[in-house]
């Protein structure tokens, strides 16, 4: 039952890492356990809820079902890679301004999914935004505030 380890190079939030890891390991575990990042969360491990979302090459990726071996030399952005409490990214600022969360556990999925979509579709309509968010869950149901924050960011971008 030997596992073949591999050296995987990742750039995460602008920092380069070389990791000796089982390439089948989902990216999420590398980010949250090897690199101790707090942004991406384990929600379901099945790619169904979005809590583990990161941005790779401009697209929202579910890190809980993405083997790290498929991402060698990839450039990855997590929620903490966007901005800080002191200098939040505009979409993070929109969520702060709208007080758009309760427990906050889902925010990685909500914010990064919305950002990746709006960056690629800056003129998206409300139904298109809705469609883009159709596989992201928030169990506190802060939906009204989150959608307001997303639209606020969209308008600021436009």
């Amino acid at each position, binding site marked *: 039952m030997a596992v073949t380890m591999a050296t995987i190079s990742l750039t995460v939030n602008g920092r380069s890492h070389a990791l000796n890891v*089982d390439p089948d390991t989902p990216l999420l575990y590398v980010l949250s356990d090897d690199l101790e990042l707090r942004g991406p969360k384990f929600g379901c491990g099945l790619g169904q809820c979005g809590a583990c979302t990161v941005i790779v090459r401009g697209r929202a990726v579910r890190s809980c079902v993405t083997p790290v071996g498929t991402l060698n030399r990839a450039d990855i952005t997590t929620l903490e890679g966007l901005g800080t409490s002191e200098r939040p990214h505009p979409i993070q600022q929109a969520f702060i301004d709208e007080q758009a969360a309760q427990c906050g*556990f889902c925010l990685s999925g909500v914010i990064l999914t919305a950002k990746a979509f709006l960056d690629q579709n800056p003129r998206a309509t409300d139904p298109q935004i809705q469609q883009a968010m*159709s596989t992201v869950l*928030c169990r506190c*149901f802060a*939906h009204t505030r989150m*959608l307001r924050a997303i639209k606020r960011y969209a308008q600021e971008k436009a």
Partner: protein
Amino acid sequence: MRSPEGPVRSETLILRRAQDERRVEGLAPRRRTVTMTPDARAALARAGFSRRDFLKTSGALIVGFSAAGAAQRIGLAQRGGGARGPQVDARQLDSWIAIATDGSVTAYTGKCELGQGISTAQLQLVAEELSVPIARVKLIQCDTSIAPDQGTTSGSQSTPTNFNERNLAQAGATAREALVRLASERLGAPVNQLAAADGVITVKGDASKRVSYGELVGGKKFSIPLSTTAKRKPASEWTVLGKPVGRVDMPAMATGQFEFVHNVRVPGMLHGRVVRPPAVGATLVSVDESSVRGLPGLVKVVVKKNFVGVVAEKPWQAIQAANRLKATWTPGVGLPSHRDFYDYLRKQKPSRDTFVVSSKDVDEKLAQAKEVLKATYLHPYQMHGSIGSSCAVADVQGDKATIWSPTQSAHPTRSGSALLLGLPVENVRVIFTRGSGCYGINGADTVSYDAALLSQAVGKPVRVQLSRRDEMAWENYGVAFVIDQRVGIDANGTIVAWDYEGWSPTLGGRPGYDRPGNVITGQLAGFEPAAFTPRTPAPDPGGAFDNGGNTAPSYVTGCVGGKCGGTGTVRSERVLSHTVKSHFFTGPLRSPSRLQNTFAHECFMDEVASRVKVDPVEYRLRHLSDARLSHVVREAAKAARWEARPSPRPDVRRTGIAGGRGISCVLYEGDNGYAAMVAEVDVDQATGRVRVKRIVVAQDCGPISNPDGMRNQLEGGALQGMSRALGEEVTWDDQKVTSIDWRTYHSLPLGFEVPAVESVLVNRTDVEATGSGETSITIVAAAIGNAIFDATGARIRQVPFTPERVKAALDARIGSSALL
């Protein structure tokens, strides 16, 4: 990295209203009985504890609290525990408030942040009472070594507990008065000539005469008891409390910097994974450790009775090992057919029967009534379904344990873990660390036990995060209900008698201080769930009317023992509930039982109003006696521009999209928040799909601590309730739960057509504060169900209102007299 160091004060007293206890679990008032299982007794014996010691030090003796009793318990605890730090005595100001030399304030609370915003509101409270900027206040929540024991953060009780004239509010007021007294001595000015602002006390009219809090007490103790006479600041003087202060945790959450329990890392930490049984009731036959031998990173396979888990160096390794581990189990006990479950539930014997109210004339009044209406309402098991599966970190080494836990019940979890681990309770520290939103008892308690057991087995810190399946298949579900309703109406169309009979299943619940078997891990490790005690027939209701479970509708007088505590006018009243055994663990899920009961009450009220052809708002008001409840009904109707007319609407068509509106209301728990809601829906009659377009909710919860926080709760409750009403239902086959992920348990995603949610806040500063976390969710299903009926003439009496179920109800209208 975290270490459990820092100030350690152990042994705490319990200072809670006895009433809080009944809030926790749900249905009827429940006296706390402490009966211990043989396992529990054995565990205590191993730890050198008698049952009596355990009860004394674990705080189980909360009934009949007295100062003398408390002192005695402290004495016993000190003798039993050896060398330990000073006590957290909840009667002492220093247990709640500390002021440092720089004037910064630290407040200690036993009510913790679960995502509901209570930490920000508590900071506002302390900042207000002490006249310091909120940024200068720090809050320590639910760390059993340094925070007072306030039981469980649940039941919408944090605001009533800490914002009225008790506990944290009382501590704030006591501290302010003490500071002013000290300043009076220091400055040589009478108390009434002093003013406090920004952490500084000055003599009015002479700003040069001033002294800061830091100068007065900085770094020293107050060493005074909580005053029983200290006056709260009147709401008219509030500058921080009552304002829409932003959540202090929001920036860290939005930028991924916030530390959840999932992010806790301690030196040398390993990762655990549990292996749950394949079927409900299956027990372990054997574990083949050779099936995982040699797997990279594997540290240990752990078996304790039916509890099985693995520990590995990395989480992915633990998952691989758990998946490969060959364990042999007996078949499960077999489950009743999901399809026929409600019939099964109604027929279950034995049952525990309770009258909430019984005027003993209901049969007679129904016989005399002009007409008797009846209907049966059905509600499924639903789950908390936290977005993040539950996680905890435990470090059990030798006879000491530290557990970082997202539990709502830090002190009870400490006691339960001590039992589970066979350690003296004072050797266990639970440090509350935020988890994913829980909405009641999700997997937080059970995963804390998982981590504790695995850590004890390897003698190193272990982190456990449950799989999605383990979270969903084994959590303590919100209970299913079958509810029969009957009313009699007189010649004027007025209700003259109301008869409720309900059935709901129970197993386990919150573990409390001494029942680790109330959740799956404890049971697997050999502890029994709380015993089910049948009782038939139900005794006459005693004491005062208690509608804590909202088992009685809002429209009855609630007369017990000659006193009437209800909010309505119907004098002939009977409310009988039957609790039966559940195959699945059950426990409080946001608005436990209240939601299910209120769905039945408020839909049935609508059916009666329709039958007598009276506008549903007017008909409700006609049967309400409570001015505050009536007021929120009117406020919701006004804000929604309610069109007064009977339901269904006069122009109902059988095809196409049909629009309608519905109303519902509740006095949550009979005394904990007034709310009313109007929902507007469109029903696609070809598919049965319901689209909720607008929700208006009006709420009166007394003085509002934070209006934006309250709106956030009302909005979230409304939409979570909508998700529960439209799609959520736990399913199972003949052996096991089949709702194990987000494809098999249906939560509305962020991308659904989210209705506009409008909140009307009724702020009353002349009454006591009540909760607002569970009000709006309680009345959503009824408001939507009533709106569907208004739109289509079809009555849906079963949650969830899936398109198939709605379509079936629409099809059943053919020839129905309900359709005009």
